[in-house]
């Protein structure tokens, strides 16, 4: 019934633009015997469903404003309704793009129906989740208003329609015949890689990069501002399906090609977007989260240099953050500081980094002679030794240096050139509060770490690190002094963490030993840092940043499930390792390592070099 795969494109015009195979696989939910009518029917249903869901958001979903986000107004979508609205619009756009409508085709250079299917799933997920949350929170489905019912129906119709569309890829050759509905569904979610894009003028490409950065900023700001509880979970549900949908459509791949072509512009745009973030925020609580995210992300990127580049599994990395924080606390004029010093901030940063460097060398020197599991255990041990020593240097069990478990409170706010970081400042009509100030300061450090990472990665030293990670014996036989280089990576990572720690001490007013555990329910701790690196993607710059943002935001936003947090992270990590072992952002190498395609890295046109891949040796700022 569904084996017929001959793909009759609706218009000749569309047929010429299809870069890939003309045959398509079976639909997961065959509605009509004839593929042509099935396609028609599927598109019709999806479109109608999307319009219906869109219309639903214009009507009230519930009668009381007690449910977070106020979903009671007609023609005024708010809170979770906005998410359904966005998903409906995206569904419609992907539908039109997959039908080959002129002007929208760039949306789906890769998969078409697979992307559409995932997007309808996203819409269904967020809308039905909202309905469930309303029913649970307000007590029963009697609290639904018509708009909610329309939304539920619309998203369901759209999903059924998307299921009736044929798969993007032709049916697999015999042997793995897709028989059951489950197999057909899995097959329908496979997408072909995007073909090559028509070249755009340079400015248009840079504009696209800027737009992507702006979108990223918007999504991040939305996530941070989303109220705790249902609105944030709805956001997560939507993101969890919508991003893979865009991924199937091939947009990230395209974007990474552009980003590789315009390295400096991409970094600049991302930096500006991050710089603008505090201006989008009016609430101190959210900038507080943002600065913590930034510190956590920066430290994770530092760890990525140790783990992702040099392949040293360091389970005690957070200790170096602690070293930096404690050093800064001791020399920055806190009343309880046993040193009683008050040096300027730049000096505190240098001292903190230097002390962390010394610790890195001292710890690395003996432990880096070990390998693999043994090294991991030893670093774990040193991390705990740091915390316990700090706890004991309280005047009772040892000399009083750190005040023991009480830590060093009341670290004064920074004041640089008369600019007090603790006070609000007006800037271009925007009020920048205490945390916004620190956010901007921290951003500078993040930029430094990103630069250090990128520059050392693409150099003689970075290549030697990766060689050691790949095969240490072969690297030594090629003349790489493995021990020295590993010590260098370890110490450099420690220095960067120490630097971040000096800012952390000021942001948090105080330092206590308890914040630098191996594992704890809230970041930063060594285990979370490592998870951020693995989740985001080892060896990449953006991976750990995104991974750290997620890992920080989710616990901060979902306070009510703090008890189950570690369990949930465990489950999430297992799922990720099963379905995307290379992490959210794939290093080109890792992607090839885990998904044996054999084709991804083949230059499409030898004369033009490799479009997606950075060319070696072309060093840029």
């Amino acid at each position, binding site marked *: 019934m569904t084996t017929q795969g001959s793909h009759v494109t609706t218009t000749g015009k569309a047929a010429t633009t299809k870069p890939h195979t003309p045959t398509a696989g079976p639909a997961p939910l065959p509605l009509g015997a004839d593929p042509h009518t099935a396609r028609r029917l599927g598109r019709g249903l999806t479109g109608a469903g999307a319009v219906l869901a869109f219309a639903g958001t214009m009507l009230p979903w519930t009668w009381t404003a007690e449910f977070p986000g106020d979903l009671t107004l007609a023609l005024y979508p708010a809170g979770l309704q906005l998410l359904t609205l966005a998903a409906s619009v995206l569904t419609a756009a992907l539908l039109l793009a997959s039908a080959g409508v002129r002007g929208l085709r760039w949306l789906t250079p890769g998969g078409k129906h697979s992307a559409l299917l995932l997007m309808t799933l996203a819409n269904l997920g967020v809308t039905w989740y909202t309905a469930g949350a309303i029913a649970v929170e307000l007590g029963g489905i009697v609290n639904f208003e018509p708009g909610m019912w329309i939304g539920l129906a619309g998203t369901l119709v759209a999903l059924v329609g998307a299921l009736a569309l044929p798969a993007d890829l032709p049916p697999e050759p015999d042997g793995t015949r897709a028989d059951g509905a489950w197999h057909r569904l899995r097959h329908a979610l496979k997408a072909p890689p995007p073909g090559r894009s028509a070249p755009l003028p340079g400015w248009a490409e840079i504009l696209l990069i800027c737009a992507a950065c702006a979108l990223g900023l918007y999504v991040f700001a939305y996530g941070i501002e989303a109220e705790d509880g249902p609105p944030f979970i709805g956001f997560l549900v939507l993101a969890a399906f919508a991003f893979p949908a865009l991924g199937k459509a091939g947009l990230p791949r395209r974007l990474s090609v552009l980003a590789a072509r315009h390295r400096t512009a991409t970094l600049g745009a991302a930096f500006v977007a991050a710089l603008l973030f505090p201006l989008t925020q009016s609430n101190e609580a959210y900038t507080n989260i943002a600065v913590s995210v930034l510190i956590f992300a920066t430290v994770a990127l530092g760890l990525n240099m140790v783990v992702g580049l040099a392949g040293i599994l360091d389970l005690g990395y957070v200790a170096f953050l602690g070293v930096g924080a404690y050093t800064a606390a001791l020399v920055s004029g806190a009343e309880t500081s046993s040193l009683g010093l008050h040096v300027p901030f730049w000096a505190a940063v240098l001292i903190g980094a230097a002390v962390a460097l010394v610790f890195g060398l001292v710890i690395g020197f003996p432990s880096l002679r070990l390998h693999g599991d043994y090294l991991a255990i030893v670093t774990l041990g040193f991390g705990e030794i740091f915390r316990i020593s700090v706890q004991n240097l309280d005047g009772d069990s040892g000399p009083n240096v750190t005040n023991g478990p009480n830590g060093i409170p009341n670290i004064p706010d920074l004041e640089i050139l008369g600019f007090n970081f603790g006070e609000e400042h007006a800037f271009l009509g925007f009020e920048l509060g205490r945390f916004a100030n620190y956010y901007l300061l921290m951003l500078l450090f993040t930029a430094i770490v990103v630069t250090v990472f990128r*520059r050392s990665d693409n150099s003689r*030293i*970075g*290549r030697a690190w990766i060689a050691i990670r790949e*095969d240490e*014996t072969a690297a030594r*036989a*090629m003349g790489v002094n493995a*021990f020295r280089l590993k010590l260098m990576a370890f110490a450099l990572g420690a220095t960067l963490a120490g630097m971040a720690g000096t800012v952390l001490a000021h942001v948090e007013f105080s330092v206590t030993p308890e914040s630098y555990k191996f594992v704890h329910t809230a970041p930063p701790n060594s285990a979370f840092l490592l998870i951020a690196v693995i989740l985001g993607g080892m060896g990449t710059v953006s991976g750990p940043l995104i991974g750290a943002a997620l890992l920080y935001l989710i616990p901060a936003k979902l306070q009510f499930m703090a008890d189950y947090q570690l369990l949930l992270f465990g489950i999430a990590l297992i799922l990720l390792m099963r379905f995307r072992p290379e992490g959210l952002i794939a290093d080109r190498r890792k992607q090839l390592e885990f998904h044996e395609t054999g084709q991804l890295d083949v230059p499409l046109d030898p004369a033009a070099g490799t479009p997606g891949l950075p060319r070696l040796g072309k060093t840029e700022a």
Partner: protein
Amino acid sequence: MTTTTTTGRAPAPRDTGGAVLEASGVTMRFGGLTAVRDVDLTVRAGEIVGLIGPNGAGKTTFFNCLTGLYIPTEGTVRYRGTVLPHRSHLVTQAGIARTFQNIRLFANMTVLENVLVGRHTRTSEGLFSALLRGPRFRKAERDSEDRAMELLDFTGLTDKRDHLARNLPYGEQRKLEIARALASEPGLLLLDEPTAGMTAVETTATRELVLAIREQGTAVLVIEHDMRFIFNLCDRVAVLVQGQKLIEGSPETVQMDDRVIAAYLGTPFEGEPGEAEAAEVRAAEAHSTGTDADQPEEGN
């Protein structure tokens, strides 16, 4: 083994005066097992020397001793007159580069990056110059890349520069390993079974490559099981049997020697390592089946 050894042999080395490599009395014991026993070997500039012997004879172990991956129990290795330290990166720095019997490329690096790693000892840009990216750094990177591209050209891998090493076909992986070793500008190149698993055509190409390497002034010491390849290529051949050097000489002499034939056919020969020890070697060999023979112990 009926090849006429003279056909196609490259002209005799011009300079046989200076010894590049002098190994004397090299012995390697693993617990009770003596894998290499009191081996002397000299390689002179411009020479291609073959090292043959049955499986488990200790050829790879001998290479590991030369390159500092193993610390020999006894004996010294000199390179151009100076005693080599037992640290493999210093050996490479001194001028000995090698390939591995089981290909050990940096699988997830590109072809070009692999060769660039080989340049490590011949460049000196440290972390700070990488961070500052001054003109000197850029020039050094450019030069390294040019040199690496020359080597890829030399080995015929130019159009594969951006492929991951792991995606290359087997024969090209072997070539890349040679290119990577050559990137360290060695005075002596050690090849461990460079034609293992290759087709006849690829073997011929490898032979040409080795001759071309010699033309550029690098001496070569090559382990190989392919007798035709060895006898056609080498100026001198040494035979290692059960850890001991049985005979060394021109391909013609070695080829004719009864003891060599006996060793390869498995007939025990009188006087040489006792039967008890041979059994021991075999036992250890059986024991180590499946483990990576190239994998040295951690030693500093």
